[in-house]
């Protein structure tokens, strides 16, 4: 308990340091349009928190990005399994995943906007899924190809096969790598999803609010929405961490 309190105090002190630095920089430059003070931003965030529109926007973005994230995680895991079982699938997927990983997110978003045209709502879903999928694919596949050979041989010797072998022996060995990727994927999905919204501008989206704030020079709004995204992303990462921890214990 004491350790947790010390850690919390450390994090709080670090945050305070950076916010203070931000405040000093804002005061020094005096350019509210470019760098508003933290007080202005948090006041604006507080105002936003009091409006129904804020939660609707947040909820709509959350659903879109969450959908993309889940598709990415499930797709990455399934494709990793397929690549592990069937070498031709691995040979086919490897360059595709490398290309997806190497493509700049902005180019990717613009290409997807062109593909989906009027389906603006689909862009952040697609982008989040595409960014998360290679990460989960790679980690899960690494876990599957790195299965303990001694344990595999033990399973063969005792004729443990099929579903039982997969769920009781192989899957528990792969889960830590899968969970690590899925956890990292949460932040990635948010970042790429909001970036996609900023460019695709689907109705009722955080990205649309950020783009509007930029166009109308409502800088405190831009910062307030950014802070909201960061907080939500962190909260989601913590929630997923807890879920995965529980899952790892139950395996």
């Amino acid at each position, binding site marked *: 308990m004491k350790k947790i309190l010390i850690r919390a105090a450390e994090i709080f002190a670090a945050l305070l340091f950076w916010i203070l630095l931000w405040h000093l920089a804002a005061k020094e430059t005096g350019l509210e349009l470019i760098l508003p003070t933290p007080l202005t931003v948090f006041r604006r965030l507080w105002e936003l928190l009091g409006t129904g529109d804020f939660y609707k926007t947040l909820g709509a973005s959350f659903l879109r990005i969450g959908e993309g994230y889940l598709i990415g995680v499930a797709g990455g895991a399934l494709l990793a399994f397929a690549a592990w079982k069937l070498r031709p699938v691995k040979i086919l997927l490897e360059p595709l995943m490398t290309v997806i990983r190497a493509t700049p997110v902005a180019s990717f978003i613009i290409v997807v906007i062109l593909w989906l045209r009027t389906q603006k709502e689909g862009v952040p879903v697609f982008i989040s899924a595409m960014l998360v999928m290679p990460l989960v694919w790679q980690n899960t596949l690494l876990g599957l190809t790195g299965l303990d050979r001694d*344990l595999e041989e*033990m399973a*063969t*010797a*005792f004729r443990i096969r099929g579903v039982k072998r997969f769920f*009781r022996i192989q899957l*528990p060995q792969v889960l830590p790598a899968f969970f690590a990727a899925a956890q990292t994927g949460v932040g990635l999905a948010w970042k790429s999803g909001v970036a996609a919204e900023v460019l695709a501008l689907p109705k009722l989206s955080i990205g649309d609010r950020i783009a509007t704030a930029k166009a109308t020079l409502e800088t405190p709004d831009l910062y307030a929405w950014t802070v909201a995204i960061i907080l939500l992303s962190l909260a989601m990462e913590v929630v997923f961490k807890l879920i995965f921890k529980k899952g790892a214990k139950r395996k």
Partner: protein
Amino acid sequence: MIELKELSKSYDHPVLTGITFTFPETGSVALRGASGSGKTTLLRLLAGLEKPDGGKIVGMAGRKVSMAFQEARLLPFMTLLDNILLVRSKETEDREEAARLLNFFHLTKAAPQLPDTLSGGEKCRASLARSMYYGGDVFLWDEPTRELDEENRALVQKAIDSLKEKALVIVSTHDPQLLCDREMEL
């Protein structure tokens, strides 16, 4: 009877060369020889985990083989009891039998523990308990008394003596105190 006919196996160097031997239906056989003489390789060939380069093994088809590896090979994320129960199907699961074997090997207290918390000797005995729980016509035990004290070595001897009545027990060993019906020098 299980016959080895001119059995050969090489890795980067020859390990077994032209081995001919006949194992009885039941009883115990000790494989003895210096380190690297091919004891483990022979057990692996008998278990079907590897194929011989030359010669053949006759009479293994259709037999249920139960192995105890030199390293315990327990699943690190499962309790000792679950590791034992794992090797049988749900239909043939027998918790009483597993408990009896754990008790026999003085592992009752360790049953709910994860393998990482066990000593080398406990892991070794757990591996033997798992092999006995799985059951079979042929038991292949690789260095079953390694890391064991006098008292536990006697337990292994007792286990071999009880199994050999109905099955063939082949053990590779450096332990001069471990007694078997027959010896095979490699």
